[in-house]
């Protein structure tokens, strides 16, 4: 308990530096020419063509897609977790847990394929897919975090005269935040990967490098897309861990 707490409030400087390693590496890779020269041998000696758009722009689009979807995930997921964990909603909570559990097993491509006929191509079906996938860890961790709040603490909160809203804002949410944050991290990192598939629907981003690379049989291009997506995922994970409150 003490150890986890100390790690949470006062992370050693070395850990902070390490957390900045991945973002730094990502930035280096975004310097024009760095990756394309690195992977030139895999593209028949020619620096792979990234389709006219600089890599940093594709990465930025990707990042916007992921973060935008994550924002929607939070706006839906946190209230949902709160709603189903209120007293008298045990059945609804079990149902939600079952659905989120199932959600993990449905392949991404299936959701995207099902969304296209109704939403068309491009951004809408991609965002829908990202939101649905992103919701799974946020809702399940949100529920787990809220359920794990010590019953004695909750009883005391009621006993000192907090309203249900005050209990939620002052006690339950702060105490479940570490678990919730872990869910947010998982959700964000997963969605960096899921968003690459969105490129198949024309949502743009780093996935378009992979798709173009595959269709042109240009391994270098595929690798550039994959390396950047990987570094972006690791960077977001590291940065989110840095801002996350420590467990106690």
């Amino acid at each position: 308990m003490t150890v986890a707490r100390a790690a949470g409030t006062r992370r050693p400087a070395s850990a902070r530096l390490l957390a900045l390693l991945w973002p730094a590496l990502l930035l280096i890779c975004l310097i024009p020419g760095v990756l394309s020269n690195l992977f030139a041998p895999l593209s028949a000696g020619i620096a792979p063509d990234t389709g006219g758009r600089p890599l940093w722009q594709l990465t930025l689009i990707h990042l916007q897609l992921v973060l935008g979807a994550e924002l929607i995930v939070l706006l839906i997921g946190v209230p949902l977790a709160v709603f189903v964990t209120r007293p008298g909603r045990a059945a609804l909570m079990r149902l939600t847990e079952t659905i989120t559990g199932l959600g993990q097993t449905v392949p991404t491509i299936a959701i995207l394929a099902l969304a296209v006929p109704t939403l068309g191509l491009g951004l809408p079906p991609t965002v829908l897919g990202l939101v649905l996938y992103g919701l799974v860890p946020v809702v399940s961790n949100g529920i787990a975090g809220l359920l794990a709040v010590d019953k004695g603490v909750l009883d005391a909160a009621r006993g000192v005269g907090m309203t249900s809203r005050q209990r939620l804002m002052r006690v339950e949410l702060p105490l479940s935040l570490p678990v919730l944050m872990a869910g947010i991290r998982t959700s964000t990192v997963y969605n960096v990967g899921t968003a690459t598939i969105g490129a198949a629907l024309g949502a743009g981003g780093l996935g378009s490098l992979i798709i173009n690379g595959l269709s042109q049989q240009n391994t270098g291009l595929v690798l550039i897309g994959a390396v950047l997506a990987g570094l972006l995922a690791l960077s977001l994970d590291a940065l989110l861990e840095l801002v996350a409150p420590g467990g106690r």
Partner: protein
Amino acid sequence: MIELQHLEKKYVNETSGEIFYAVKDLSLVFPDGKITALLGPSGCGKTTTLRMINRLIEPTGGQILLDGQDIMAQRPEDLRRQIGYVIQQIGLFPHLSVVQNVATVPDLLGRPRAQTRERARELLELVGLEPGQFADKHPHELSGGQAQRVGVARALAADPPVLLMDEPFGALDPLARDKLQEAFLDIQRRLQKTIVLVTHDIDEALRLGDRVALLTGGELAQFGTPNDLVRHPESEFVRQFLGEDALLRQLAGLTAAQLAQPGDATGLPQISGTLNVRSALSVMLGQRSDALAVLDAHGQVQGVLTWQALEEAG
């Protein structure tokens, strides 16, 4: 003053339809400024009774008056902010500092922050925690005894006239429990709160209670001073529950100072006035003396404890 009138809490089993009374036709008055112990075996309805007083549980019958007012006339949250509440699990907010924990109720009442913090520090002092050392600690850095002192300080923060305590010393080791009980009695002598103290520990009830309400099966078995219960048990249950050694236990709850009388103390073995009478008795037997000199906190003789006084008490 808290008055329970024909208080009842029944639970209906959803599958069998069976009715179970956790508390049944309970009428009691908790006198102002006194500690009333709610004593009884596990499952007899002590916690249920206590939690009905601050509406954490709603009664199914009867009523509760607080200073003559029906407690149902207020919003439960408003009622609870006027009633201190201390539980066995302590329930400090782990993400808040000690001083923030203590300031919870005044904060909820919207009192000015600076004043609230100042008051919280005074309360820490009152419960025996040096504010400079403890104010900014977090609950996980405290021992069980220290944490429960903070729990008591939090309950007292808004200066409520009434304090409800559910086995507040139950989770502590015997040494910490003894110290905290002592500190608690000392605080109560100064503050004179109306306290309802739930316990299943007979010694604790006899030691701390000005009055004892003994419950069994959700009903009142006997209500009176510790002396009444020990000397005049009204039923076989009361006698058996208190046990054969009830008198000795009660002596353990009295201090030498309480039984000391004026008299000539020259040449007598000396004991501290805070020593309990059972221990004083063993000093008498060990020293083969039928009287002891009782000293006050400054080492001055405050009286004489005689064998005869013990006989009268026991």
